[in-house]
Structures are given as structure tokens and as C-alpha cells.
């Protein structure tokens, strides 16, 4: 059951990575694998299958001697599974069939390494040890025809490099997946557009504005203007630490684009430092409608929209806003 789930996951990963028949053929071409390699590998098939356990032990002994591989060895469940898969790998390596099924098994092992946090360089070291052992065994057996043995081993090595390519790609892909997810969540978090009254939107901007982010902010603002039929937008930049000519240009673009859609933009939250540096830089922001703080901006927006905010208490409390 667990195997089936794992297989389904491997298949899904293969689709995500774009590993189809054509891609696999391309990869074979990259390592120079040809039909003539199959019989050469077949010549050393028995040698490898008979001593599979030895080679697997070599691989994992090498890993257990390394601090960098502790995460793989430490977990008994993962280590056991890895051993089993490695054994299957060695057997499959000399069968001459390197299609989707074979790649699927490699992907599963690669995913396991990725889960254990095994680095590509550590894997490469251990894999090299394994190949060295197979190589010396091959050379020992065919001592009368060293050239044939060498040729067979080289054919096997093509498959080995084919495997390395797959494993490293899985490791990189899995690592990048984390980055992709983080970027995605940052993107979603970073551009909220909030409706605070009928036809009034609030756009709080926090952090660093670069070209990419400015684009996202503008796009989501424009879409929200359309969706909420907004007439006034209050853009609060209290959370923007520094503003240079580039950032101010981005802000101006956002304001201009919103205006093209018929929305009026009020910019609030320019701190004393920001205002001074803008003046010192000679940046032209006269086209912007700016109000000191968010409260002032909201009051101005309500005035434009014709809202009047009144307190419910008639005798006490602060004076009504906007009156």
C-alpha cells in the first residue's frame, strides 16, 4: 500500500519535472547510450547481480562514515528503504531496460534522498565508491580480455551517469520546490487590497518595492478597482523604509494606472525622512495627492466619497470625524 502511494508520488513528480519518453531518450543521448551498449552490459550482468549485497553495503558503509549523510543513516526506516531501493537499482541497472519504469524507480530513490536531506555531493561520493568496486570486480574477472571488461564497464557507466543526472535533478527540483512555495506565499501576503468602505480601497505597502513586486501590486490593485468598482484608493506607504527614484517611479506608475481606470489615489504615510529625501533627490511627486497619515487619508477619501462618520453617543465622546 505504502509502495503504491510512493509510486503514484513518483509518477506525479515525473510529470512535474517533464520526464516523458522523449525526455528520457534525450537523456540517454546526452550520456551517449546506444543499442550496442546493451550486450556489453549483459556480459557483466551476473557479476553484478551475484554481489548486489556487497555493493550496497559498500555504498552505505561509505555514507555512514560521513557526517554529511547522517540524516539518511540515522533514520532506520529511511535507511532500510534506501538499501532496498539501491539493491533493486543495481539489479535493474544491468537488465538492459531503461524506460519509464526504470526512471520511475530512480525518481523514487531520489525523492527519498531529498527527504533525508542528502546533498548531491555526498551522494556522488558514495556512488563513485560503488562504481569503483563494481569496476575492480569486473576487471578482476575478465583479466584475460581487459579491453572487453573495460568496454562493458564503460557501458555500465553511461547508465550510471544517466542515473546521476536523474538523481541530481530530483534533489535540485525538490530544493527549488521549497523556494517556489516560499516565493508564492510571500507574493500572496505582500499585496493585499482591502475594501474598507463601499467604493473605497486600502492598499497597505510594507517592505521593499522592486520592479517585480510593483508590477504585482499594480495588477492586483487594478483588478480590485474593477471588481469592487472603487472610486478612491488610499495607498499607505508607512511600511516602506526607503524611497529612491526607482521606487517613486513605481508608485507613480501605480497611481497613474489606477487613475486611468477612473480611481482617485491618495498616498499616505510619507515619513519626515522619506519626504526630506524625496525633496533632496528632486523627485517630482507633485502629481500625487498626499496626506500625512493613514487617518488623514481615510478622512480625505470619505470626504471625496461623501461619507460622514458620526459617533453614536450624543452627549460624550470625541467630536465626529470629518465634520
Amino acid at each position, binding site marked *: 500500500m505504502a509502495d503504491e502511494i510512493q509510486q503514484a508520488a513518483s509518477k506525479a513528480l515525473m510529470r512535474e519535472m517533464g520526464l516523458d519518453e522523449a525526455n528520457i531518450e534525450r537523456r540517454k543521448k546526452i550520456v551517449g547510450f546506444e543499442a550496442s551498449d546493451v550486450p556489453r552490459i549483459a556480459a557483466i550482468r551476473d557479476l553484478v547481480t551475484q554481489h548486489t549485497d556487497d555493493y550496497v553495503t559498500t555504498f552505505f558503509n561509505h555514507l555512514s562514515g560521513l557526517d554529511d549523510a547522517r540524516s539518511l543513516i540515522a533514520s532506520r526506516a529511511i535507511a532500510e528503504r534506501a538499501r532496498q531501493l539501491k539493491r533493486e537499482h543495481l539489479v535493474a541497472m544491468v537488465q538492459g531496460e531503461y524506460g519509464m519504469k526504470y526512471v520511475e524507480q530512480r525518481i523514487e530513490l531520489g525523492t527519498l534522498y531529498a527527504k533525508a536531506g542528502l546533498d548531491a555531493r555526498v551522494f556522488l561520493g558514495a556512488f563513485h565508491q560503488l562504481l569503483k568496486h563494481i569496476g575492480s570486480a569486473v576487471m578482476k574477472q575478465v583479466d584475460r580480455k581487459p579491453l572487453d571488461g573495460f568496454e562493458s564497464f564503460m557501458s555500465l557507466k553511461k547508465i550510471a551517469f544517466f542515473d546521476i543526472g536523474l538523481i541530481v535533478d530530483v534533489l535540485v527540483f525538490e530544493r527549488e520546490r521549497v523556494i517556489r512555495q516560499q516565493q508564492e506565499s510571500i507574493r500572496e501576503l505582500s499585496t493585499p487590497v482591502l475594501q474598507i468602505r463601499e467604493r473605497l480601497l486600502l492598499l497597505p505597502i510594507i517592505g521593499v518595492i522592486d520592479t517585480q513586486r510593483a508590477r504585482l501590486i499594480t495588477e492586483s490593485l487594478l483588478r480590485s478597482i474593477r471588481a469592487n468598482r472603487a*472610486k478612491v484608493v488610499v495607498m499607505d506607504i508607512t511600511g516602506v523604509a526607503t524611497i529612491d527614484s526607482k521606487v517613486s517611479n513605481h508608485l507613480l506608475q501605480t497611481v497613474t494606472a489606477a487613475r486611468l481606470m*477612473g480611481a482617485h489615489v491618495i498616498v499616505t504615510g510619507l515619513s519626515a525622512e522619506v519626504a526630506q529625501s524625496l525633496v533632496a533627490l528632486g523627485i517630482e511627486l507633485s502629481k500625487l495627492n498626499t496626506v500625512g497619515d493613514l487617518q488623514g487619508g481615510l478622512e480625505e477619501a470619505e470626504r471625496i466619497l461623501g461619507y460622514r462618520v458620526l459617533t453614536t453617543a450624543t452627549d460624550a465622546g470625541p467630536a465626529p470625524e470629518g465634520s
Partner: protein
Amino acid sequence: MSVPILKQGDVLIASIQAALSDRELAQLHDAFADQVGRFRSRGVIIDVTALDVLDSFATRTLRSIAYTAKLRGANAVVVGIQPDVAFAMVQLGLSLEGVATALDLEEGLAYIRDVAKRGSHRVR
């Protein structure tokens, strides 16, 4: 295909339905300049909802129509610029400086009504 200009009370409305050639844009400009005076309109609305691109010539023509209408005594408003179009325009540095814009036709009509109520010294 020339764009029909509809007269709705004292407002002229042109809804552009497909991308126009430069010549057709110039025709639209001339037609507006003529009809604003003839019908004694106080508002001009150009609806570009159906357009998915506004190039520099179109932008300039829209601006020119607005200025001309102003000189002839009518307020012009461009309505229905799509989000993607607006974004592309600012990226290209095209802006409708000095031209009123509104979200859609309804907003555009409300704007013209507003302006007339607020500041106009015209006798209604």
C-alpha cells in the same frame, strides 16, 4: 468601420468596439469636434471597454478629442480602460494627462452630471 456617435440628452457617447486605424481615429476626432458644437453638448464620453490595446496614436487622439471638446464647451471623459490596458499604458509611458477617466459608462455619466452641478456656470 466608423464609430457611431450617440446623442443622449446633452451628452455625446461613442463606444469603440474594435481596434481603429489611424484614419478612423482621425474621423472620430473630426466628428466629435463638429457634433459637440452642433448639438450644444456639455459632455462627451468615449467608451473603450472593448479595446485590449491603446497605442500612442490612439492615446494622443483621445487626449486631443478631450481638449477640443473642452474648447467647445463640453467635458470629456474616457471610460472603461481595462486593467491590462492601463498597466500597459503606464509601462509605455502613455498617460491621459488632463483627461478625466471613469470606470465605466455609468460612472462617466455620473461624473459629467457632477461637474455640471458643481462648477458649471452654464444655464441649464
